[in-house]
């Protein structure tokens, strides 16, 4: 199976979940939120195409602490591929950033995730003082303690 990726930022992020995290920006989003920080991910028909098994291998190789956040775009726009990638990354400290609400996130991936960020970005609720979220309506959930 293949997945379209916008870019990968290795071992650098401090704002996409606890620790120093590698962030995978998955290509494609149809929400087009005002104030989006990553408009280059909107296009649903472009970006490098990765074999999922190979991508998972590369991520495990290059991410020093195996702390990986899957962000976007809207990762669940390529739902099947992302589910497959998450399963391939079993054993890593995984976080998923989605604009969906908690109920809309496929239940089968929850056991693989450590953290989950849910909720659409709303520019009018923009917030820079609460960790790991962009607007006040969003929620950052530690799945090991909260669910």
């Amino acid at each position, binding site marked *: 199976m293949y997945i379209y990726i916008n870019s990968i930022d*290795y*071992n*650098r*992020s*401090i*704002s996409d979940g*606890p*620790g*120093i995290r590698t962030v995978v920006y998955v290509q494609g989003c149809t929400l087009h939120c005002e104030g989006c920080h990553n408009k280059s991910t909107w296009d649903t028909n472009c970006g490098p195409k990765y074999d999922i098994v190979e991508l998972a291998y590369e991520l495990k190789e290059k991410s*020093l*602490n195996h702390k990986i956040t899957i962000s976007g775009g809207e990762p669940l726009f390529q739902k099947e591929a992302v589910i497959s990638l998450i399963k391939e990354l079993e054993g890593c400290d995984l976080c998923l950033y989605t604009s969906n609400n908690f109920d809309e996130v496929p239940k089968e991936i929850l056991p693989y995730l450590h953290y989950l960020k849910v909720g659409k970005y709303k520019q009018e609720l*923009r917030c*820079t*003082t*609460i*960790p*790991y979220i962009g607007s006040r309506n969003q929620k950052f959930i530690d799945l090991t303690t909260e669910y």
Partner: protein
Amino acid sequence: MGETYENASDRKSYVGTIFNKGSDLTKKEILDSLPKEWSDLHTKGYIYIHDLNAYGTTYNCLNFSILNKFPFDELNQYNDTLKILEIFGHFRNIIAKMANEQSGGMGFANFDEDISTIFDKLHIEHSEKNMELLSASILSFIRWINGVHERCGLTSYYVTLNLGLSTNTLGQKVTEYVLTSFRMAGPKVFKPNIVFKVKEGINLKKSDPNYYLLELALATTCEKMIPTYVLCDCESNKKYNPKNLSVMGCRTRVVQNIFGEPTGIGRGNIANITINLPRIALDINAAYPSVETEQKISLFLEKWKEIAATAVNILLDRYKKLISMDKIYFPTNMAFDLWTGGFLAAASLEEIFRNGTQALGFIGLSETIEILIGSPYYETTFGTELALKIVREMRAYTNNLINIYNLNFSLLATAGEQISGSLPEKDCKYYDHPVLKKGFYTNSFHVNVDSGLTPFEKIEKEGPFHTLCNGGCISYVEFSSAPISNTEALYELICHGINCGIHYLGFNFPIDVCNKCGEKGIFDICDSCGSKDITRIRRVSGYLEILDYFTSGKKNEVKNRKSNN
């Protein structure tokens, strides 16, 4: 703001103006009195003699031996309330007086443990009321250090509180109060420098008794960039008793002592001369444009040794003058025995100041390698090896000086607050080179501030230099914004730092504060209230200050800073 400042902590005042006039005249007199060959090196920018106005009349910095002659008897006659108030009164008194007796920073090596010892010796009860007063006194002490600009009428006291190792209940409380007070005091309280000492078995692992204090320290750093961290288990520190390690001023590290046990307590730097490495490289490039790289490096090191030899003569001359001073110029040192060696009983000042260290510093290693081989050192394995070879040679040279002169010498990784801008400015008069365009030289061995390396990579690249620079150094990880609540990230980098040989680690990020509503963030217009009245707080040479007061070199550096995340 049109005014210029020699240090970011300076402010203008009538007394300060008079001090500066006297200081400038003294510097000129001293330079005129030195052999021309020596003063030329300074005026032409090959070397920088730090604290020139104190040449031969005082030393640089000191970690107080605060317990030596603490006035226990005097305070023991009071009740607990007065005792606690007077402990901090004594600290303030010492800081203010010592600022008149020495030219540089002051350190408390074990602020937590020392206060608990003082409480014990004064038989102060650990009652709720006394703990409340202790906590309030600590906050008041912090606010005082942050607020005063009375030293020489123009600047603040450069105080460093080292803590984190005391495992007795009161020592732990002191660390907790310092961190909590500092954190709650708001963004505009950004002094003193607080250094948390990290040590496995005490505070590094979850099962360690002070792990909760490390967590508190990390949470504080996430908001305020302070504390910074001395890593007691790193290669260069692990053989020492962690209680004897400490940092004073922006980075000074004093440990080995040929006259006594290895410790930083009761000891300091006597003087420091920084050698302008890029200038030597520019000279060599111009004089030998077509030689092979290897030969260029040999020529570079040869010229460095030539300049270092003169710098050492200057340090020795300065030291000789210092030890021939009359003790009466050091009344506070005498009264409270703040140096090791017994100030009052000592037959001469030599018996005291020989415990201090003479430091040879360097600036702009990154530019130097770029001048010599065409790219910054960290970009290639060859460059990295070359950079390490140069620093190894410098360290071997300072080590050798110890045997030759029977004095403590060390290699210091200079931050160069003022010279980061003034040295390239001087070099521009003689040369035109791309490294001169950005208006500052990079701090000691640091990778370029816009390197784009990840935090892990930066630590890996800079770690080996920490093992070599025994006179002090620091590495910073630069974040684009405050790592809100991400203590886990800082903890990972601390662990990585220990493994990579990092002795002293700090975290930088921009803090903008709205003067109208107090909101913090990164903005030109406040996110909350829309005000344009913003104070920008940044780190400069180890301490935090308001950006408007930065020197030109450091202002240029801030413009170039690119985060590692």
